[in-house]
């Protein structure tokens, strides 16, 4: 039985004019063969994939006025995952950008039928997210707070209210729920067809049964595509091939890594109930039970995300196999149990079918969009983690903007293809990781969770040493970084139990590490940071850096400059530290996840000059951060060189010897605002230098520390980090970094005009530090990030990061404050006065905490001293 006939669109009128251009998905095979069209030989854009993503991109591109577009589909339109999709559109997402995409999709689909005349089956049913536990309810409340501030109605409701909204639900084990009334169900295949139809009317040419063999690349730029029906020259290529995107990416001569992997996904269809369910019955998401349930033709459609997913197509398979995937009832059993527990009355309902429709998942459960770092003009939109329908409209729009304008209208860094590199492209890695990601969709998302699979890929040479000393690890861009060090006598809770929205069990550990950073000296292995070297024979390196960076990098040799790498809009593409090693050579340190993005940006803007050399030296150096007032003592003892500020001023870089090892790049900065040094050590010396530092440091009370301590230190000092606080839409002026911009450095740089304009007009948002006043660290929910900020009761922005400050003994949140006009909602200029004259509250899962706003770091932090009578005998112990 062809399921196609079941779920989607039988016997509806298919006579819109746009259909003449392309062979219909519904036409019989013989008709399609008769319709043998010849492909055009060239186009501006070629889109691969006739699912919801491909058609959405085509739709939006054509709406934006681009007409010369060809869409190719290897099978029939809307025949892959799109066809099997359960058709639930849900806006309740964890990321704001995802919420916005889903919200846009919702609005788009709603009016699509009117626009195209194609029935999409759009019904506004609303959805209810059930909470069986208090922790789940907290998670829902956090989403609820965020939905409300972007204008999506939703509310937390009681179990009793749930029972009123849905007749069949067993609500006895619920503690609450979230109701999102504007969520909808829709036939995704019909949406794709409608989008295709509209695009076609706008001039997009659509060809099905046309397989792309590979993309032609010339000089790092898309030149065309090779299909089984001939070549098409093109400037832009969009890979919307869904679960085949990975294979297609690899098929190029210069492969494009698109890390995604498919898993089998099951849902159940039943015959109608005796009294058929109303078509507007809300969709139920019971994440604790791992299932979703929607009404479907008077019966129900229910599927879920099981704990033990079945990855599929690891070796890459032909699409034809999708049709032949087996139902696996034994695998579905836990979900069926869960369904019957939730709706006991369904016992007597007759089964129609168990559908197996593979879904695509990515290594971090976020979708993949954007331009390939390796091939210019090669765009990707894939890896929807089972939310393709919800994201389809919005994601298509952002990608179309990206292609047309060069950047999307929202910050999409979290979804950018360039957050991954080739290192996430191993099939084994993907297979293992998606087995963790798929269950995660319904797992409780608590702060600071780390993936357990695909670990220990990139490690520092000190990994074993640190691990043996109790290091607990987190992973960034495949690199293992220590979070904190569990002392030998300390017994932490098991991983499962330490998942909490409240005070975590490592609190005391991090506190002692922070204290040690403040009073003695700590070592943090920070080898994961991205490190580039730029050298030239003449002044080319300096010239290009002056053009790319907003600060003046023409400083004396040995000086370090903090500077942003800005885009045309003045927003941060990267935030880095640049050390001038000599007249013609620079050493550049960027955040870990910048490795691919920054490289691509530099490559894109650097002239093709053989005298200018850019090298990624990340792997060549182990970085140790010596933080604390005694760092200077440790280092001078190891180098027999004076390290006092007179000899070694702040933001200074010098190659020197440490222990027996020579050629260690020592930099007087710590990324935290605390005194100390970064040591960039050629990896073969890493163990030696570490051992020397630890043994000499013993008498100064040295100990290992991790990133949690670093985070607490930098946030209480109001240090913004790119990727968390800063993104491509924030400018230096908006985060109080005027001093790092040299508008008059006598040379143009990217973003200069935008900054000049902003300087004149004022900023529309302002990076602000909040100190929570009435927040009880032991008892209250902890802030994380993304909490709404209220000023005088009005929503003004969201937090971007937070940490507990052990010096202030308060929670500190960083975030952006906007000034929305009370009448029109338009953004207005934010002045220091506006910030200072306001009463602030931070909303943590629906509870508002009072907060003090600061535009500058708290001065008293810099003069921390321990009082004499506080000294104890234990201070004499080695740390």
């Amino acid at each position, binding site marked *: 039985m062809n399921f196609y006939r079941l779920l989607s669109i039988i016997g509806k009128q298919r006579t819109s004019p746009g259909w003449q251009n392309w062979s219909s998905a519904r036409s019989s095979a013989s008709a399609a063969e008769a319709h043998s069209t010849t492909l055009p030989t060239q186009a501006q854009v070629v889109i691969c994939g006739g699912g919801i993503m491909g058609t959405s991109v085509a739709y939006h591109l054509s709406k934006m006025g681009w007409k010369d577009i060809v869409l190719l589909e290897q099978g029939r339109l809307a025949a892959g995952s799109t066809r099997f999709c359960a058709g639930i559109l849900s806006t309740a997402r964890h990321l704001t950008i995802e919420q916005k995409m889903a919200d846009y999709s919702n609005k788009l689909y709603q009016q699509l039928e009117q626009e195209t005349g194609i029935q999409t089956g759009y019904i506004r049913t609303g959805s209810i997210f059930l909470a069986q536990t208090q922790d789940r309810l907290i998670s829902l409340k956090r989403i609820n707070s965020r939905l409300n501030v972007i204008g999506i109605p939703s509310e937390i409701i009681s179990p009793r209210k749930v029972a009123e909204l849905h007749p069949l639900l067993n609500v006895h084990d619920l503690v609450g729920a979230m109701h999102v009334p504007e969520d909808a169900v829709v036939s995704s295949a019909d949406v794709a067809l409608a989008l295709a139809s509209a695009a076609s009317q706008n001039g997009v040419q659509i060809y099905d049964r046309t397989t792309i063999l590979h993309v032609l690349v010339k000089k790092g730029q898309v030149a065309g595509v090779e299909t089984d029906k001939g070549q098409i020259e093109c400037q832009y290529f969009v890979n919307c091939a869904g679960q085949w995107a990975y294979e297609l990416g690899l098929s190029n001569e210069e492969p494009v890594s698109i890390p995604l992997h498919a898993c089998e996904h099951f849902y*159940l269809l*039943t015959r109608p109930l005796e009294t058929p369910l109303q078509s507007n019955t809300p969709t139920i998401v019971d994440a604790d039970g791992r299932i979703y349930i929607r009404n479907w033709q008077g019966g129900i459609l229910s599927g879920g995300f099981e704990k033990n997913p079945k990855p599929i197509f690891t070796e890459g398979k032909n699409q034809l196999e999708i049709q032949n995937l*087996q*139902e*696996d*009832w*034994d695998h*579905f*059993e836990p979900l*069926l*149990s869960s*369904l*019957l527990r939730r709706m006991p009355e*369904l*016992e*007597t*309902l*007759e*089964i*129609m*079918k*168990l559908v197996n429709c593979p879904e695509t998942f990515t290594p971090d459960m976020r979708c993949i969009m954007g331009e390939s770092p390796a091939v210019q003009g090669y765009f990707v939109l894939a890896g929807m983690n089972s939310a393709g329908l919800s994201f389809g409209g919005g994601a298509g729009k952002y990608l179309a903007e990206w292609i047309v304008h060069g950047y999307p209208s929202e910050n999409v860094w979290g979804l950018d293809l360039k957050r991954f590199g080739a290192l996430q492209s191993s099939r*084994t890695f993907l297979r293992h990781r998606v087995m963790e990601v798929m269950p995660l969709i319904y797992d409780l998302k608590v702060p600071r969770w780390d993936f357990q699979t695909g670990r220990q890929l990139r490690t520092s040479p000190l990994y074993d040493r640190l691990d043996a000393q109790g290091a607990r690890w987190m992973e960034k861009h495949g690199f293992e970084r220590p979070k904190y060090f569990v002392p030998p006598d300390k017994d932490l809770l098991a991983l499962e139990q330490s998942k909490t929205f409240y005070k975590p069990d490592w609190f005391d550990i991090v506190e002692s590490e922070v204290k040690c950073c403040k009073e003695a000296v700590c070592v943090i292995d920070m080898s994961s940071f991205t490190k580039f070297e730029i050298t030239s024979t003449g002044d080319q390196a300096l010239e290009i850096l002056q053009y790319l960076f907003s600060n003046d990098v023409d400083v004396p040799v040995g000086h370090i400059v903090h500077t942003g790498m800005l885009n045309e809009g003045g927003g941060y593409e990267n935030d880095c530290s640049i050390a001038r090693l000599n007249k013609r050579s620079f050493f550049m340190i960027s955040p870990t996840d910048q490795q691919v993005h920054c490289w691509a940006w530099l490559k894109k803007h650097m002239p093709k000059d053989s005298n200018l050399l850019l090298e990624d030296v990340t792997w060549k150096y182990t970085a140790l951060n010596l933080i604390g007032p005694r760092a200077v003592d440790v280092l001078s003892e190891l180098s027999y060189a004076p390290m006092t500020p007179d000899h070694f001023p702040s933001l200074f870089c010098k190659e020197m010897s440490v222990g027996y090892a020579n050629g260690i790049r020592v930099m007087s900065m710590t990324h935290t605002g605390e005194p100390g040094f970064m040591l960039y050590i050629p990896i073969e010396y890493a163990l030696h230098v570490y051992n020397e530092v630890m043994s000499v440091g013993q008498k100064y009370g040295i100990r290992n520390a991790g990133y949690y301590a670093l985070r607490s230190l930098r946030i209480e000092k109001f240090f913004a980090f790119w990727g968390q606080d800063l993104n491509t839409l924030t400018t230096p002026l908006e985060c109080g970094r005027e001093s790092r911009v040299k508008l008059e450095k006598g040379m143009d740089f990217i973003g200069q005009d935008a900054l000049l304009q902003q300087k004149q007009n004022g900023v529309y948002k302002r990076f602000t530090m909040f100190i929570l006043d009435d927040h009880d660290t032991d008892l209250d929910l902890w802030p994380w990030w993304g909490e709404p900020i209220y000023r005088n009761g009005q929503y003004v922005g969201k937090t971007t990061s937070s940490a507990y400050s052990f010096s202030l003994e308060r929670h500190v949140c960083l975030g952006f404050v906007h000034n929305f006009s009370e009448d029109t909602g338009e953004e207005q200029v934010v002045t220091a006065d506006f910030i200072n004259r306001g009463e602030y509250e931070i909303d943590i899962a629906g509870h508002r905490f009072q907060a003090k706003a600061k535009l500058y770091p708290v001065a008293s932090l810099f003069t921390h001293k321990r009082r004499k009578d506080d000294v104890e005998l234990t201070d004499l112990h080695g740390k």
Partner: protein
Amino acid sequence: MCVCPGPRRIGIPVRSSSLPLFSDAMPAPTQLFFPLIRNCELSRIYGTACYCHHKHLCCPSPYIPQSRLRYTPHPAYATFCRPKENWWQYTQGRRYASTPQKFYLTPPQVNSILKANEYSFKVPEFDGKNVSSVLGFDSNQLPANAPIEDRRSAATCLQTRGMLLGVFDGHAGCACSQAVSERLFYYIAVSLLPHETLLEIENAVESGRALLPILQWHKHPNDYFSKEASKLYFNSLRTYWQELIDLNTGESTDIDVKEALINAFKRLDNDISLEAQVGDPNSFLNYLVLRVAFSGATACVAHVDGVDLHVANTGDSRAMLGVQEEDGSWSAVTLSNDHNAQNERELERLKLEHPKNEAKSVVKQDRLLGLLMPFRAFGDVKFKWSIDLQKRVIESGPDQLNDNEYTKFIPPNYHTPPYLTAEPEVTYHRLRPQDKFLVLATDGLWETMHRQDVVRIVGEYLTGMHHQQPIAVGGYKVTLGQMHGLLTERRTKMSSVFEDQNAATHLIRHAVGNNEFGTVDHERLSKMLSLPEELARMYRDDITIIVVQFNSHVVGAYQNQE
């Protein structure tokens, strides 16, 4: 069916006394050849319920237990020994057994017993590609004797390709099975070595250089090697390869695995026999070699090299190949012949090897000379040496030997020794992609389970749930409730699979705990494992299992190459 407890493989028609043979320095309390329980009493207690696995057991009349037992454990084995062979304990044991037991082990306790000896080995992958046709193996043992008389070995040949796996079922103690388990693979590996390698090794020994390693052992921590005899064993082995070097004519001939296996088996048995005849100045070693020679062991060894699978079998352990048919079902292919009275060809052979007038006495009551169950075995010099030789060795041997009724006892109708051989029967099988695994197990398993069940259970275990025919709704009216009921039932059936991470453990769980419906019955399992040591042996034999899993991809690739 024989309803009497007593000596396992060897029945001895002695009734007056059972002196603890080799009571000193035994690795464990195997002093008793006869459990100190009176047959008549036991038959009364257990009546027909007593199911004796050893049909070959033959104790014509009850014997009177002796109280003059000595016990002086050798320090090295002290930890293995529990002084229990005394009258007091016997009565305790009897009372314990005669009272109906309400005591059951909990599932975790059952699991810890079943898993105590489990071992798994996965062949490491190189460059992401597993070049070995063996994926790995699972093995396990469940003792019935105290101590267990079964042994197992597994090793990878380092100088030639291939992997060796074997199970060894000892009788009259564990000395022989222990020795064979440590030594046989070296003999096989040496037999397989090319001339140049042998020369290289010999030269290294001669000049005191480091030796090439020959075997990589894969051992459970409980699988010990005897340190004391190591030197002696090495010298015997060296003599063997020196002879191999001398025999070599210089022409490099392809080594035939079958021949190598046969030579190795025969040579080791010969060495065991010789060592006992020659003796050793060290009294401990002298006694050890005698114990090895006077006890016995069967051996079933597999050699896997690419698609070439050889099984060498001596005795009644068995090698069974698990074959998955195209429809997913499992069938068993036996790769060894049992050497016992059930094997017509063996009966034939024995009759041919001895004069006509012995035709009736050579096999009596399905036993060799009315005593021994397996018709081929290592050790057991009582069935190999002439009467003169036996008497001479015993007289010159240590007192323990001399005082022992068993060793002194000459089998009846003992006219034309040898009656027993260690020569194996070698089977060759070329692996096919449908050959998924090989089960090597001692007769303790095969007595309780049919080979077809063994293969099905392992096959289903290794492939996970897939064995259950997938459910398809296709056209039938099924409600969610009905489906749920069906699935829950299927899952319960499967849950026993998930308890085990080891195919051999899983098999033992079934072998011991299966009820009449072929599913594991926890109550039964718990009862069987709660039996006191003295009784366990009557309900089951030692079970030793190795399950070798093959890599179908590699096997398939070999096939395609040709």
